[in-house]
């Protein structure tokens, strides 16, 4: 019950952040010099027609009226119609979401799955080759541009070695999409019992997932190492050692539990970077997800689509923080909720 109240309070706290984000997004897109209506109307529309279209779209109203209407529509789950696809932006986003989710999910899974064990081992065995390797990964991963890593991976494993398929989306042309269940092609193909499609989809995933995983891995490994070292040097670990507890128990039970909390918060932040990095990765891999959609929308001055994407991205980011906060509240008895 108290946890439910805590979650509710955290949710309420998110409202001003989301409202602020919507407000900023609304203004940013209104600042754009090129008028979208003129783009939609095309070069042959008369001035009167353009004026009339602006009036119909409500673009002649004062900004606060426009903002109010926008908020009202948003409350009904209406993000407007995309100029490019002529579909509701919410429909577009829903269609594109699974592709991005599959990518970010496996990318983060790879990052967390590699970074946390690496960070722990490197803290326990400071100065060994594992430790050196972790430090190199941690500093290199945050120093290389994500889009460049993607290009190097593709040119090595596709162009040069030919081990993996090229940057041509979620499935090679010869394959058709598996029946929609979760929207994640690998999962859907398995559910369908279609192993050929599964392997094809999995192969397409490898390079973009590694790209996202590599960049997300670096800060997590670094933070895990740092907090683990601090925990291992703490009084309670010294006490546990003096009591003669085996190292394995000390590391996993005493140190890790304390060290993991800041790492969890960082994972939420890294998730935010992953959503951003995704735009670049999807662009390179022609991955038909949210990132590619937003990129096309920006290039085509598709206001509603850009706005919709940014709001969704902020919402996901904030939600990730919320989930992490709840996890921490459950893990850390010192936190009052």
């Amino acid at each position, binding site marked *: 019950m108290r946890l439910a109240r805590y979650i509710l309070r955290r949710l309420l706290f998110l409202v001003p952040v989301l409202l602020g984000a919507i407000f900023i*997004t609304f203004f940013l*897109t209104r600042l754009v010099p090129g008028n979208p209506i003129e783009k939609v109307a095309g070069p042959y529309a008369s001035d009167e027609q353009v004026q009339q279209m602006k009036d119909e779209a409500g673009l002649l109203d004062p900004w606060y009226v426009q903002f109010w209407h926008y908020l009202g529509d948003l409350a009904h789950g209406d993000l407007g119609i995309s100029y490019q696809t002529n579909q509701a932006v919410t429909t577009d986003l829903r269609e594109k979401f699974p592709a991005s989710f599959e990518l970010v999910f496996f990318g983060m899974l790879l990052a967390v799955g590699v970074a946390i064990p690496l960070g722990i081992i490197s803290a326990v065995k400071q100065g060994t080759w594992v430790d050196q390797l972790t430090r190199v990964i941690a500093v290199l991963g945050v120093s290389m541009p994500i889009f460049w890593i993607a290009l190097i991976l593709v040119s090595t494993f596709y162009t040069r070695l030919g081990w993996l398929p090229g940057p041509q989306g979620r499935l090679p042309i010869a394959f058709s999409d598996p029946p929609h269940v979760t929207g994640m092609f690998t999962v859907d193909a398995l559910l369908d019992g279609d192993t050929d499609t599964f392997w094809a989809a999995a192969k397409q995933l490898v390079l973009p997932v590694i790209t996202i995983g590599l960049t997300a891995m670096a800060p997590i490994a670094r933070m895990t190492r740092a907090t683990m070292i601090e925990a291992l040097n703490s009084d309670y670990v010294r006490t546990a050692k003096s009591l003669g507890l085996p190292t394995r128990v000390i590391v996993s039970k005493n140190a890790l539990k304390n060290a993991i909390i800041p790492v969890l918060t960082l994972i939420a932040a890294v998730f935010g970077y992953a959503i951003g990095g995704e735009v670049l990765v999807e662009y390179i891999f022609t991955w038909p997800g949210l990132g590619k959609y937003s990129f096309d929308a920006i290039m085509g001055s598709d206001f509603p689509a850009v706005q919709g994407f940014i709001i969704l991205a902020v919402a996901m980011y904030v939600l990730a923080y919320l989930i992490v906060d709840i996890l921490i509240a459950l893990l850390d008895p010192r936190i009052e909720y």
Partner: protein
Amino acid sequence: MSAPTIDLPTSPVTPPASAAALAPPFRERLGDFWYTLRRNPTAMIGLFMIGVVIFAALFAQWIAPYPANEIDFAVVAQPPTREHLFGTDQFGQDIFSRVLFGARIDLMIALSAVVISLIIGSVYGAISGYVGGLTDEVAMRIMDILQGFPRFIFAMGIAFALGPGIETVVIATAVLNIPGYARLMRSSMLSAKTSQYAMAAKAIGANHRAILFKHLVPNCMIPIFVISTLQFGWAILEAAGLSFIGLGVETSRAEWGAMIQLGFQDFLQGHWWMYTFPGLAIAWTVLGFNLLGDGLQDVLDPRRR
């Protein structure tokens, strides 16, 4: 704000004449700092790497064998040779020369962005922390909103609104870094404003502005400078990312991200040198700043050693 109560130690030592004298002299601290820093290999490697880039930026016109924009259709898309160390792009421009000239644009973008965000963020955070109360609360919630955006998405939004160009990249990158500075300055300010030198300054009758900007802010600057090295790295990565997707610097200019975009356009032809070398330049530079930042943190926080 609640006025901090004066609580000077009642020791037999005569109180110093000036409030600033209570803090150790800046030059002496700087000397100590350099002494420790020189013994930190990480920081020194980083400093060396940055030095190379600054050297390239300053002397590009003498080192570079070709001008940054010399189009020569006789040598289009050539792999690395002795004449063209890093090869040429699809306009026959020498990539080695462009990488050197690129150091100028990229360092200038990063420097401008960092300076702008440092000034705005520090002043904002300093005032917020010093004034405290409701002002502080509201000011920090605004920063929450700015940080509620995934970084690169926010940069894209700003760049989208402003249209491509160098100024766009600077502004977008600067806005991203403001909350970081504001938060750091505010938290340093919260502890600095209750310090003895702050009270001493108050005791000798200094006004708020003098206390804030003459006594407190200078004492909170060291962590600000340390994160600036890391912010530099971020700024270069973000600027290059924006240019790469066509929201930043135009591809006609010798900027690293824009050069990678040119290389990407020729990607399927297997012209690997077009994007590999500018990318290495980015990685080298950002790595330099990150190593220096790590080293600085080690030096300033002995617990991390």
